[in-house]
């Protein structure tokens, strides 16, 4: 049977699962997909989160992508990370860095089953903070300094591509390199507050071409979200590596 036929029947379980753990956030980014800021009182309790992890373990889901909101502001965040990894569920989480101090960085660096993605949307404080809020650049860079000092290699620096940072691609790559991180680029989507800020922030046509050309030169060293996998009208596929399950660059 061909692999295509085999895959038509699907997998027994997801390879990974995205989990918005909380809508609480110390920031209020103008492009936030989930319009996060305040915790929702209906969010799962610690015990309920553990039950979700138990289910994922039974299904043999390899890992969860934890986001939000800012997942690390949940008081039980580290406890849940430990619970997941102790139950063979790997954790990748996205953070603005607010809770990544030197102790947290050392703890993360010591665990094979955890990956960290620092969100930053500009190579300079002015470009980043205009979208993510005053002080958020410094917070993210400090977190990256802690991760580097702790010896955490290959964490991700995740950037939403906007009109104001596409011109900073080289600087963003240099920033990731400086901290031993891997640059990950994702598309800006008009969802949540991103719908309100869409007209001010979405890349313009010429910038899309600029991004395409940049990825053609640097794609092998850069991760991208799923939505980057398409055939461009320029006649070839984009060479960037996807960061989700087709992670081996085979696509």
């Amino acid at each position: 049977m061909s692999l295509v036929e085999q895959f038509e029947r699907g997998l027994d379980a997801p390879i990974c699962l995205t989990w918005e753990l909380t809508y609480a956030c110390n920031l209020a980014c103008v492009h936030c997909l989930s319009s996060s800021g305040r915790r929702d009182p209906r969010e799962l309790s610690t015990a309920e989160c553990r039950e979700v992890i138990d289910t994922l373990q039974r299904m043999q889901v390899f890992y969860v992508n934890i986001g939000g909101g800012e997942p690390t502001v949940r008081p039980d965040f580290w406890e849940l990370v430990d619970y997941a990894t102790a139950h063979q569920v790997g954790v990748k989480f996205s953070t603005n860095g607010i809770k990544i101090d030197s102790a947290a960085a050392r703890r993360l660096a010591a665990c094979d089953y955890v990956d960290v993605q620092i969100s930053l949307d500009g190579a300079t404080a002015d470009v980043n903070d205009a979208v993510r809020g005053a002080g958020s650049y410094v917070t993210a860079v400090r977190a990256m300094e802690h991760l580097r000092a702790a010896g955490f290699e290959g964490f991700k620096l995740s950037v939403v591509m906007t009109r104001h940072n596409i011109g900073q691609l080289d600087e963003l790559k240099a920033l990731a390199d400086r901290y031993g991180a891997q640059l990950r680029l994702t598309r800006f989507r008009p969802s949540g507050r991103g719908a309100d800020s869409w007209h001010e922030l979405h890349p313009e046509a010429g910038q899309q071409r600029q991004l395409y050309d940049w990825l053609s030169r640097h794609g092998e060293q850069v991760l991208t979200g799923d939505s980057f996998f398409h055939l461009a009208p320029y006649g070839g596929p984009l060479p960037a590596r996807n960061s989700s399950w087709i992670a081996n660059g085979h696509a």
Partner: protein
Amino acid sequence: MSTEAEAAPPFDLDRAWCVDERVAVRPEPFGALLYHFGTRRLSFLKNTTMLAVVRSLGEHPSARSACAAAGVGAALLPAYERALATLAQSRMIRERGSGS
């Protein structure tokens, strides 16, 4: 059988091998999925015989013996050897006693 594209270096069927400790093996109708938590890469095993070979590597003195026990005949052995070489290259399996 695994699906890595690049040619792997030669594989020694007569040595003792095992699945890396950081690899999760999940059986699937077509064979299995392997996920390596260290490299964060995924591989496929394309049939259940390959799954039986991989799962039993750690209990056999050699990969050759694991293949024989799973019913892999001489005609098919080279294909299994190539698939194992690919898994070794991507660090899904490692030589026993080699530490990592």
